[in-house]
């Protein structure tokens, strides 16, 4: 770790985790996370207002914990990065407001960055600098996309995405049908290990010859699994939970890995990065490894703790923004719940980024108080 590499603090509040991470270049120094997932469990999904309230409670203590963990002084930071989107609007707003206040109070540059690009960039903390271009499969409760990133700070291209449910959402819904609680991913992964993935032939969405090659669909699969379970229940038979979990999971990861490997081959990319909460799934990791090896593709998957939402991934992308001299965001940075994946960061107004927020309220910002 070179002392001249950028030292960046990253804040993530797009869903139910309040994350603050600190990195120097591609080295992880701290990864503090406060989760409100337990509070949401009885609702069977993330409740936005509960998440926002929890972010407010946890924000400053989590920043302070990260600084302590990293053993650095806030004065030495080279920048503050924050997820400005996509995500839950009210939840994002807490992190963005905190990041702006922190950057302003410390006189540091502010970088509003894209949550999805951060999920990709986090792998730099695990496996070193990203190859360019990077092929990435992002799978979580909120997103399922195939992305090609020639430059993670400025050029991220969507190849495909889910047309209905996200992969993680399908896990949650099937877990609910099976009365396994929320979130569904870890428990299905665990039960599937004791089941037979070939026992029930569930459908593979969008895998026909005329279907979009890189798009995903998990809604049909979800309905099909639910029907199968209901039929068993209606017949008074016991539902073989482990076999259902294994067969359902197999259908999801089969499609994900098949399409990701195909995208690598089609685009001539010789490695694949998998990120997002579902990347913690053991069967997805195993099948991806197997198929990548067979295709001569190098697989990069960060450890599970870096796959789920966290502040370190935001700091990692922020550090890359600093290293590549990307233009900082301005103090009017807003949370953008639908920030497109094609915008890895939200540079200041002068740069004229694609979003047309109205700027009738643009004021003279005293340069003195900004990044002094």
């Amino acid at each position, binding site marked *: 770790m070179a002392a001249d590499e950028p030292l960046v603090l990253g804040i993530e509040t797009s869903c139910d985790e309040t994350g603050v991470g600190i990195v120097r270049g591609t080295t992880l120094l701290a990864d503090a996370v406060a989760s409100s997932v337990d509070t949401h469990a009885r609702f069977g999904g993330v409740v936005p207002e509960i998440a926002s*309230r929890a972010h407010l409670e946890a*924000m400053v203590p989590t920043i302070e914990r990260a600084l302590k963990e990293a053993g650095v002084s806030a004065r030495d930071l080279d920048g503050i990065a924050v997820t400005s989107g996509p995500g839950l609007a009210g939840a994002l707003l807490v992190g963005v407001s905190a990041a702006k206040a922190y950057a302003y109070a410390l006189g540091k540059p502010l970088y509003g960055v894209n949550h999805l690009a951060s999920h990709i960039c986090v792998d730099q903390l695990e496996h070193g600098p990203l190859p360019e271009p990077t092929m990435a499969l992002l799978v979580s409760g909120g997103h399922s996309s195939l992305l090609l990133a020639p430059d993670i700070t400025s050029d991220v291209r969507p190849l495909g995405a889910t047309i209905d449910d996200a992969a993680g959402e399908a896990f949650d819904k099937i877990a609910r049908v099976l009365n396994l609680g929320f979130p569904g991913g870890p428990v299905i992964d665990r039960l599937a290990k004791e089941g037979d993935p070939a026992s029930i032939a569930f459908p593979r969405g969008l895998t026909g010859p005329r279907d979009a090659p890189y798009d995903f669909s998990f809604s049909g699969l979800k309905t099909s699994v639910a029907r199968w379970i209901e039929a068993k229940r209606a017949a008074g038979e016991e539902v073989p939970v482990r076999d259902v979990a294994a067969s359902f999971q197999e259908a999801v990861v089969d499609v994900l890995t098949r399409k990701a490997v195909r995208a690598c081959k089609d685009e001539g990319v010789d490695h694949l990065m998998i990120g997002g909460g579902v990347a913690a799934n053991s069967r997805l990791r195993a099948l991806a490894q197997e198929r990548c090896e067979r295709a001569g593709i190098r697989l990069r998957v960060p450890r599970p703790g870096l796959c789920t939402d966290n502040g370190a991934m935001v700091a990692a992308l922020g550090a890359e923004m600093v290293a590549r001299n990307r233009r900082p965001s301005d103090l009017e*940075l807003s949370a953008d719940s639908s920030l497109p994946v094609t915008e890895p960061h939200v540079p200041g107004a002068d740069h004229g980024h694609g979003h047309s927020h109205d700027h009738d309220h643009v004021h003279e910002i005293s340069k003195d108080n900004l990044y002094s």
Partner: protein
Amino acid sequence: MDTATPAVTVALHDGTSVIASSGQVDARRHGELLLPAVDRVLAEAGTKLDAVTDVVVGVGPGPYTGLRVGLVTAATFASALSVPVHGLCTLDGLAYAAGLEGLEGPFAVATDARRKEVYWARYEDARTRTGEPAVDRPADIAGALAGLPVVGAGAVLYPDAFPDARAPEHVAAGALAALAAERLAAGQEFLEPRPLYLRRPDAQVPKNYKVVTPQ
């Protein structure tokens, strides 16, 4: 600073008087407006944030997502600068401002809680609240407040319930800061810098699992 109502308002107070202030009414852009307003106020006062010795924030009650913008900004400033952050009830700021405009007690303060409700509290005078802030339908409290002047946008919105509406409509951080300066000088207590939501979060427990098979 206060972002508990549609107003985004910031002021700098030196213990004697307000040096600079800003107020913008835009319920949808608290997040975008607050930091530039802080910057503008400091620039106008010819000083910088690190000169600030105390941060004061309106804790609501407020229905807006924006309420959290002021609170998290204040808490983050306080952490970064290692200075204390003090909470004040937003309604107290409005009452104090009404007092500066010459209103004597008793009176009430009401702000818009949306969903056809108001946040409100009664005051003996501009510095003395009697009872905790509450959230109610205007018609349900009109009788109890009959004959009293009612300060704030909540009164303006419901003239049938509150015929004697008084200024100001929105809270100004200058008044909040002046009230805080008085309390600091007198060694009085403040509220914790935590939001007064007065409502439980909207959280729908999903209905029992719905059968998808056609019957």
